[in-house]
């Protein structure tokens, strides 16, 4: 039975977990692993949202927590998993930048994010104020991942991880956005993933591979 | 009173027409002497004109009206020029009609017409002559204008009579700029009148000739007019020179009695005689230049004129 007092530190722990997972995503090569990590991220997000909801006593946050559970822990990983097994794209080829460098850059990004959010996070009234920087860090790391990866699928995972970061930011900074917006975001996310699914198949039947270097024909030459 | 001036004007023109060939003849005579040849008589040009006037005009088949009118236009312009230039007196009713710049324009008109006429028949030499004539023209005009500029700056007027009046006012004015200008003017005069070193009035060696090349197709009375016009041109240039640089003797400053006129005529004759001799001397001493040395020659003239101008501006800043 957690007391409200101990929630703050607990949340910080979870946030650090998110950050850790983002780094792990940067380093992983196997797509399967990435998906699992993504699911984990979702799970942590779910937990933290529940905690925030519990601490702030806002019922609507429970809804969004549930939404997270369904969408990000179960549905999306499952869809991605199916996709992979259908397309047989378990392995991600070499990243564009080698992983240690990526890590270093990621570290710099984290520092940057923290430095950036320090002044404003003090304004926050929420118990989770210090996690805003973490959220931003997660977003930037996901961005970095999208830049460094070659496969369409990993890019998508990066994209979803970014959404996670945003969601986390929303909950931690402001106890979540109004419900309408939450729903809208969730809906967009879902549609987006479905469209991506369609895309993958089209891309595959056109290029019989999901490697992005096939998608570099349109350029100024 | 006005009547008198008109009479004087008329007289001056007639005199000019009359003695222009004489001047040409005189120069030819001096040249002959200097090159110790037996000289033709002074009136040789008149005989020439008479002969030409009596002959039938042989006209090329495809000659256009332009070709036939040109000699008259040429003659007309030169006579008009003679009427404008104060060779004897300054109070000429005609002189107001055109100042020195208009005079240059007048000469240009003559040049353009003769060149066009030369191109009219469409023979090789005609067009060649026309081209060269126009070339000399555009090379000479800037120099001439600069020369005139000198004089204008002195007197503050482009009207030749006022110039002469001005000189009469300050009789013994010595302006170094004029010296430069005078030399430049002589060079231009030689070039413009198809004399050595630019052209040779007596040659008929096709490849070297300029002025003569344009007249090849003319004969009889047309030729006579053209020749007369060119001797008039030489005369006019001489008179311009006198008016600009040695205007002594010209009836000016309201002295327009018959005595003054007679004096003026005498002075003019004297100047012509000297000038003719000088010209002949120059021509005998110098050799004809290649056609493409002409630019350098006239550039020198231009340079001298500009030097004169600058000198004047330096001193004239008094």
């Amino acid at each position: 039975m957690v007391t409200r007092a101990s929630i703050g530190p607990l949340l910080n722990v979870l946030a650090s977990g998110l950050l850790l997972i983002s780094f792990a995503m940067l380093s992983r090569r196997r797509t399967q692993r990435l998906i699992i990590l993504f699911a984990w991220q979702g799970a942590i997000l779910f937990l933290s949202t529940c905690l925030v909801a519990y601490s702030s006593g806002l019922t609507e946050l429970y809804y969004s927590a549930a939404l997270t559970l369904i969408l990000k822990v179960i549905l999306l990983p499952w869809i991605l998993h199916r996709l992979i097994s259908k397309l047989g794209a378990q392995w991600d080829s070499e990243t564009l930048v080698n992983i240690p460098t990526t890590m270093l850059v990621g570290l710099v990004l984290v520092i940057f994010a923290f430095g950036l959010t320090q002044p404003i996070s003090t304004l926050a009234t929420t118990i989770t104020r210090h996690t805003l920087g973490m959220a931003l860090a997660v977003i930037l790391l996901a961005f970095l991942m999208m830049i460094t990866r070659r496969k369409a699928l990993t890019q998508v995972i990066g994209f979803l991880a970014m959404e996670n970061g945003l969601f986390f930011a929303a909950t931690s900074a402001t106890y979540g956005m109004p419900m309408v917006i939450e729903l809208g975001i969730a809906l967009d996310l879902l549609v987006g993933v479905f469209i991506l699914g369609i895309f993958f198949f089209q891309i595959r039947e056109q290029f019989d591979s999901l490697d992005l270097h096939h998608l570099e024909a349109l350029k100024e030459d | 009173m006005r009547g008198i001036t008109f009479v004087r004007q008329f007289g001056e023109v007639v005199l000019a027409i009359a003695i222009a060939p004489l001047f040409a003849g005189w120069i030819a005579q001096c040249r002959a002497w200097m090159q110790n040849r037996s000289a033709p008589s002074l009136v040789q040009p008149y005989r020439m004109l008479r002969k030409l006037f009596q002959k039938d005009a042989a006209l090329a088949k495809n000659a256009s009206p332009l070709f036939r009118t040109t000699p008259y236009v040429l003659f007309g312009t030169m006579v008009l020029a003679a009427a404008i230039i104060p060779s004897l007196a300054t109070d000429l009713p005609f002189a107001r009609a055109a100042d020195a710049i208009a005079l240059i324009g007048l000469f240009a008109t003559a040049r353009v017409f003769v060149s066009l006429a030369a191109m009219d028949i469409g023979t090789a030499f005609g067009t060649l002559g026309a081209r060269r004539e126009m070339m000399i023209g555009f090379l000479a005009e800037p120099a001439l204008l600069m020369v005139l500029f000198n004089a204008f700056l002195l007197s503050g007027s482009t009207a030749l009579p006022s110039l002469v009046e001005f000189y009469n006012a300050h009789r013994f004015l010595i302006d170094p700029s004029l010296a430069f200008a005078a030399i430049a003017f002589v060079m231009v005069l030689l070039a413009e009148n198809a004399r050595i070193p630019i052209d040779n009035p007596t040659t008929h060696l096709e490849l070297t000739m300029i002025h003569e090349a344009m007249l090849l197709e003319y004969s009889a009375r047309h030729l006579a007019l053209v020749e007369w016009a060119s001797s008039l041109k030489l005369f006019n240039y001489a008179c311009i020179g006198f008016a600009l640089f040695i205007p002594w003797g010209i009836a000016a400053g309201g002295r327009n009695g018959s005595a003054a006129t007679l004096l003026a005529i005498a002075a003019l004759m004297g100047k012509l005689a000297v000038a003719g001799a000088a010209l002949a001397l120059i021509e005998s001493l110098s050799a004809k230049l290649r056609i493409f040395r002409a630019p350098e020659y006239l550039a020198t003239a231009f340079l001298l004129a500009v030097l004169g101008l600058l000198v004047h501006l330096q001193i004239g800043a008094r």
Partner: protein
Amino acid sequence: MNVHFLISGWPGHALPSLLLIIAAWVVIGLAGLLRPHSLRFVAHLLFPLGALGCLCVALLAGTFLVSGHEPEVLVLPLGLPDLPFHTRLDALSGFFLLLLGLAGAGISTFAAGYFRSGEGTAPALLGLQYHVFLASMAVVILADDAYLFMVAWETMALSSYFLVTSQHRIPDIRRAGFLYLIMAHVGAICILLSFGVMQGGSWQFTFDAMRGASLAPVWATTAIVLALLGFGAKAGLVPMHVWLPEAHPAAPSPVSAMMSGLMLKTAIYGMLRISFDLLHVRYWQWGVLMLALGLFSALFGAIFAAVQTDMKRLLAYSSIENVGLIFTGIGLAALFEASNMRLFAALALTAALVHALNHALFKSLLFLATGSVLHATKQRSLGKLGGLIRRMPWVATLALIGTLSIAGLPPLNGFVSEWLLLQSFLFTPQLPHAFINMLVPLGAAALALTAALAAYVMVKFYGVIFLGQPREASLVEAHDANWLERLGLGWLALGCVLIGILPQLALKAAGAVTGKLLSETISPGFSIWLIAPVTPEHASYSALIFLAGITAVIGIAFVLVRILAHGRIRRTAAWDCGYPWQTSRMQDTAEGFGQPIRHIFGTFFRMERHLPSPSDKSPHYRIHIEDKLWRAIYLPIGRGVQRLADVVSVLQGGRLSIYLLYSFLTLLGLLVFVL
């Protein structure tokens, strides 16, 4: 209507009637679309109507000028919400409208007889573009706010572009049009920016506001420089001239006439409007700048015209020369004005204005003449013409008048303006600036050289086209112009002669302008015979006496010759120093005539010469002359842009990761920026 009514010139009502005429032009243009392909309807009905409009414009503007009314202002309920169209008729615009009307009447009349069906664009479209062109030029002159001015200005460029490319199937013509429109557009932007400098504040874009605005010296100079760039690009000042020798020849001849004769003048108008009216000349350096550009353009144009082998290109370059002369006059005027020598400023400005008027007349005349020659012979190259004076006496005679006037020979109109210009040069030694008062007088020499070169060019032009023997067998069935064309040519020639022998008319018109701009006019004291700009003692010129004198002498000489001698004539073959078998090929070609120029001014050109070797079976001589500035300025610009474009296109490398990186870096950059 009674005569008095005419002369009094509807005090306060000239402007509305002018605007009505302008509207009428547009309507005339549109009317052509009713019967798009009927040449007779468009050419023989609409164009004469347009010419009538031109006459009315000339009449209105002339009466306005002589009656010396106060400026008329009219605001139309069009344009931008807070910036309706302002129009204004004052002396300056009146003068240029007079010019437009006089020359335009001749050109339109000629055009009525000129346009043939099946030549490029459909007649109706041509008619529309033509009349819109005409109207837009008039509006440019009448505009009194930056917006209307720019709209009319660009409309003018656009309509003329379409006219130029009316035979768009020929690649060269397309290229010419392209170059023209680009230069026009960039120039227009410069003008716009110049207005931007002069504006009175937000929404204060009327000329009145600009007159009132106070500018720091640096900004005023910026405005002048920008204006000089813009208007210079339109007027063909070197080095913004490159489009002109391409575009003017490409157009149908009446359009070439319009562009050379009228459109260039709108640029002159704009320059005058800005430098003398909007920001009253402040610093003598402006004058020196314009003077230098003008003189150089004049010389440059004359030299290049002398070596051309295409008759319309030759005329185009001569336009550059004349514009140069006009700018010389403007520069002198500015120089004097800034040094408080009002009278001399007025003299120089008068010279410039009169020369603008003259150029409008004789350049249109010559371009139209080339049009007739073109239709009669289908030849543009001087190398294939000759002897047309016998086939087309009318055109030849009228063209001779144009030739003599443009060569600046008394007693025709070209001489008047050059005379005035030289006169104003005579006072430059009195300028109160060291060096300037020594250097500028030398400009007079350059001017003289230019004038003489112009004579050279025109002898070449006329001699090679109309004189000599036909260089092509086909020339023998060349036909003379039809009556409408003759009428148009005759009108313009008449103008040249009239202004030549009665310069007082032009001087009075110009005097009205200088009176308003410089509050000083050159001495009104000249009688009907005599013009004496400053004082009769100083200098005087009387074309009338001049002409009378020459004609009298010629007549007397003729009569005397006939009385004392005889009039017998024997027609024979040409003598030519007794050389037999001369063919038409032995005459000087256009190239040959250009040879001395190439020799003397070689540094100006970039020449590629192909000379035959003595052993050639079929020797032929080819020379290609190029403008050095093209390679010196324009090609580098083009290459630079190309290179930049190549560099830029690296941004679009096709790699998604890189694209993402861009937005990532942008994000980080901006975040750092706000920190």
